[in-house]
């Protein structure tokens, strides 16, 4: 017997507005506390709603204990949900809210009739059974005296507890929690985190938890599933997600981290911030990589004693530790240490080989499919850009009428020629005004990489991405436009030749 209680196989969910969940595969083990973690709009809630039965996947299968439940309605699933805004029934008091599920329940009872035959019958729970179960659930959430209270008079934290009691009283096989602590204040949230974890231990049922709070996920879960744009980025224990992030998105999303560009210069040797470090990951020679180092893994030493010298640019007291920015040339390394070094002080840093995490670079350049229009400009990603079309045929020139003249003297009309466009990450300029550039979109992601920001700008209709490396900081969701110098647009023919004339 395998112990997979729930399995998602190639599950997708599409809306008219786009894809919310894109072909995800995931299984959850019995009794596990699993957290779906990601920024808003990453598809985590949609995934949860498909498991609950509120949404039907556009494709794929959901198995519960090996049985297909993809199309089974929510009221026939042994799964209960704690909703984001509690969704308590305002017309019922605390007792009736919690008893709601029990009153729907039918259990099999065995009778013996007067002929001595055994008869199985579906019966309701008795009033006494319901009362016992409800008071047990109330005790579990510390609300013993609240049975007769009107739910609308309860505080947020108390409503939250009623919502949890209402779900667990049914003894579901799986409890789904959709950002249940989002509306509580910090202190209460911390307490509830521990209580939920305690409850999970006591009840022994499977918890599937959705949150955008990475700290919450790290504190509570056995397994974390990091999601972005409807796809799973990484699945692992909190420890492995924190220590071995698979890509720079995960590294940036889970806790503070320093992300720098580096190059592999030898066997388990990586060069970044102008120094060759030993590391433990194997990557091909000369590969461009992202290097991730957690702030608490960087040791500060006196100048000359560590691996790289630099200067402290700023220092902030954060309670348990100081957070200091250490400048090596133009690159900033964030360091957390309990001993403060003053701003302007020169120092050096040391990083252990096992604390240097190396990831393949996600983006080396931007590639698009596009075409040349009548004015010899190239169209891609919802924009129209000036470009040098002579790049398509080496040695060719443009005549006055706009035809391309090849070295052989042949004349070409390039209109509608399909091309592959390649643009470097540093060759795109971001412009504040969304009408001044050649294409526009919104900023969907910003990741700081030591000496620059990596910004992703997504166009509105076709959702094409411009990945841009820039020194300037922008805000997420900003509307911006992009400009690319004509000489920086790399062009290649998609098919062997253009329309001949």
């Amino acid at each position: 017997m395998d112990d997979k209680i729930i399995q998602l196989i190639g599950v997708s969910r599409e809306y008219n507005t786009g894809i919310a969940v894109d072909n995800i595969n995931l299984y959850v083990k019995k009794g596990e506390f699993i957290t779906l973690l990601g920024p808003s709009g990453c598809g985590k809630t949609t995934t949860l709603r498909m498991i609950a039965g509120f949404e039907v996947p556009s494709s794929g299968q959901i198995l519960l204990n090996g049985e297909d439940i993809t199309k089974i309605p929510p009221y026939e699933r042994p799964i209960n949900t704690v909703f984001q805004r509690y969704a308590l029934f305002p017309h019922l008091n605390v007792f009736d809210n919690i008893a709601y599920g029990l009153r729907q329940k039918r259990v099999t009872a065995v009778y013996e009739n007067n002929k001595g035959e055994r008869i199985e019958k579906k019966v309701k729970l008795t009033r006494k059974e319901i009362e016992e179960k409800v008071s047990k659930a109330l005790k579990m959430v510390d609300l013993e005296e609240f049975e007769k209270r009107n739910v609308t008079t309860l505080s947020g934290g108390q409503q939250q507890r009623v919502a949890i009691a209402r779900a667990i009283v049914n003894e579901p096989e799986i409890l789904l929690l959709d950002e249940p602590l989002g509306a509580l204040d910090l202190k209460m949230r911390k307490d509830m985190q521990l209580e939920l974890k305690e409850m999970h231990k006591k009840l022994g049922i499977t918890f599937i938890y959705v949150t955008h709070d990475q700290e919450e996920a790290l504190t509570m879960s056995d397994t974390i599933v990091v999601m972005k744009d409807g796809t799973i980025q990484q699945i692992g224990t909190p420890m492995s997600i924190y220590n071995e992030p698979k890509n720079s998105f995960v590294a940036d999303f889970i806790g503070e981290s320093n992300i720098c560009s580096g190059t592999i210069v030898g066997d388990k040797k990586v060069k970044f911030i102008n120094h060759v470090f030993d590391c433990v990951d194997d990557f091909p020679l000369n590969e461009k990589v992202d290097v991730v180092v957690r702030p608490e893994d960087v040791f500060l030493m006196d100048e000359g004693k560590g691996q790289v010298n630099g200067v402290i640019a700023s220092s902030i007291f954060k309670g348990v530790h100081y957070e200091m920015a250490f400048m090596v040339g133009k690159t900033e390394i964030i360091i957390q240490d309990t001993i403060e070094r003053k701003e302007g002080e020169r120092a050096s840093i040391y990083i252990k080989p096992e604390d240097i995490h190396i990831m393949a670079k996600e983006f080396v350049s931007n590639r698009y499919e596009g075409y040349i229009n009548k004015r010899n400009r190239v169209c891609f990603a919802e924009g129209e850009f000036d470009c040098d079309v002579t790049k398509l045929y080496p040695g060719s020139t443009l005549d006055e009428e706009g035809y391309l003249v090849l070295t052989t003297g042949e004349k070409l009309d390039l209109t509608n020629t399909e091309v592959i466009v390649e643009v470097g990450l540093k060759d795109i300029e971001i412009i504040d005004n969304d009408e001044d550039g050649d294409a526009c979109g919104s900023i969907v992601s910003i990741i700081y990489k030591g000496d620059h920001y990596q910004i992703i700008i997504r166009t509105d209709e076709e959702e094409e991405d411009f990945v841009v490396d820039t020194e300037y900081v922008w805000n997420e969701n900003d509307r911006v436009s992009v400009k690319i110098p004509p000489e920086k647009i790399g062009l290649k023919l998609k098919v062997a030749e253009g329309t001949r004339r």
Partner: protein
Amino acid sequence: MKLRFARKHLCIPYALFLALFVIAPILIMLYYAFTDSEGGFTLMNFASIFSDITALSAVLSSVSIALLTTAICLIIGYPVAYILARSGLKHGKTLLLLFITPMWINFVMRLNALKEFFALINILDKSAYFNTVIGMVYDFLPFMILPLYTTLIKMDNSLIEASQDLGANKIKTFVNVVIPQSMPGVISGITMVFMPSMTNYVISDILGRSHITILGKLIENYFMQNNWNMGAAISMMLLAVMFVFTWLTGGFNDDAANAKGVGL
């Protein structure tokens, strides 16, 4: 003293209107209701309502017509409002408009059209009672649909999901969650249909061809016969009944008042 303009002065025009056209007439009516034709104090006007056969039968038919109309409006209106508000129809708003546009056509014209239609299908002379009920349903249905629609569209969808999540199928969810949640709309719908259908005698005049006398008609008759005292007494009694009805259904609560405000 300098004259200062304060925000409360904005209500002066309405206060004047209220005093002249609402409070003064009620006081005059009260005077007539409690006096006889010579102007002396009496309670005879009220006593004779309950001893006069015409008056009693008018009360009975008014109440029964109003009850029947309200019930039919609720039975037709609830499903319509539910479908418009909750089934995610693409053109829900347009459909709602279709149900409401008849209200913009002149009331008497609509009734006469209905009368001609009844004549056409030969039921005009059959039953004055049912013709009146059909006419009232036809006229007052939008007043039932609108408040129901507004409460249903405001209802938090997660409540329905929570109910299904806890094991209640669609029918049980409807009975246990949707109906209780839509009660403010039901009450304000009932109020808005029941009250006018007690008194709107134009409908019974045109469609019942004056074969049926409801309270509104009775009041008119008394005033036409120059018996202002009796007319005023019946009006006052009706006012009291409506007041009690509104109070019983919680119409003076803030919650229900809000729901009604949206409905209007």
